[in-house]
């Protein structure tokens, strides 16, 4: 009873604060401060058509680095928690998958991977980028492990892709210090023609590495959850 009263009190205080915040809100009509600078100078400074990409990869590149690190930490903690006991490895998952799903997955998985790679290669021109492309690749891996529940994904491939893309991300960031203005500066290559595929300096390369790394980490998490189904 006391708990219910406390919950009601907390929620009503929150609702009152939200009401105040809502009633003092005015619709914005123009950009101010930092975002005005990003919007008006972003095209000539960075050379990417997608301003969200230019903010994520260059202006706030440290943020992305930390974010990828946090995702890596999460994947490692999950694989530590969902570790199989010895003797669980021989168990198989008794779940019959239909023939139609297996055949369709063989047809669909290359298309899904190709679409994911397209999304993160074109992150500087169209909506999309490393995080979306990585998530799409992980969806393809999910389809693969759903069609064949007893498949064992190659651990070495996932770990090598993850490590090499992470290290290359940092190395390109450090190269920016020597060849251009600072850490993760994309102007170490020429900016190129605005709107071309090979433009915006190092942004496509960095975002491809981010996409590979995110895809490998999400696939690793899915694989661990799939493996945990064995231990009955």
């Amino acid at each position: 009873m006391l708990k219910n009263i406390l919950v009601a009190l907390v929620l009503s205080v929150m609702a009152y604060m939200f009401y105040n915040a809502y009633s003092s809100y005015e619709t914005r009509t123009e950009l101010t401060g930092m975002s005005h600078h990003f919007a008006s100078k972003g095209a000539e400074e960075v050379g990417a058509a997608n301003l969200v990409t230019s903010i994520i990869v260059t202006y706030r590149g440290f943020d992305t680095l930390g974010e990828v690190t946090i995702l890596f930490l999460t994947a490692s903690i999950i694989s530590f928690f969902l570790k199989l006991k010895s003797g669980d490895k021989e168990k198989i998952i008794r779940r019959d998958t239909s023939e139609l799903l297996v055949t369709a997955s063989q047809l669909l998985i290359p298309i899904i991977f190709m679409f994911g790679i397209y999304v993160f290669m074109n992150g500087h021109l169209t909506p999309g980028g490393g995080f979306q492309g990585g998530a799409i690749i992980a969806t393809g891996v999910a389809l693969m492990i759903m069609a064949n529940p007893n498949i064992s994904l190659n651990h070495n491939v996932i770990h090598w892709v993850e490590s090499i893309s992470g290290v290359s991300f940092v190395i390109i960031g450090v190269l920016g210090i020597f060849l251009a203005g600072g850490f993760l500066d994309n102007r170490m290559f020429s900016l190129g023609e605005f709107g071309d595929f090979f433009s915006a300096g190092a942004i496509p390369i960095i975002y491809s590495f981010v996409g590979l790394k995110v895809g490998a980490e999400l696939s690793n998490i899915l694989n661990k959850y799939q493996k945990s189904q064995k231990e009955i």
Partner: protein
Amino acid sequence: METIKLIGAIMILMGSFSLLIAVIGLLRMPDVYNRVQAGTKASTLGAIVSFIGVGLYTVESWGDGNWLGRVIILIIFILLTNPVSSHVLMRVAYFTKIPLTKLTKTDMLKKDGNTIIKEGENE
């Protein structure tokens, strides 16, 4: 160009009508299997017809700037994924023993040794 646009608009309308029929089927069908069938069949047709309509509606010239190529890719993708997903959905529903409706006449999967109760049989 104006006639092509008109044909596109009419196709979009037909696709929307098919989607409306899909929704009515979802509401009125008696059990899960019929509902999934109504939803998937009618919505696949509706989506394909509306996509072709959108492709014809946005034709400005036969060179650049029309959506027909992208729309064809989308249609191929829908034709690949939509039947497979509904098949898997109904298969899982059968093996988790969701009851069939009482009006069911034949149950082909039952002959293969799977058992399932009809609605209201064990009461």
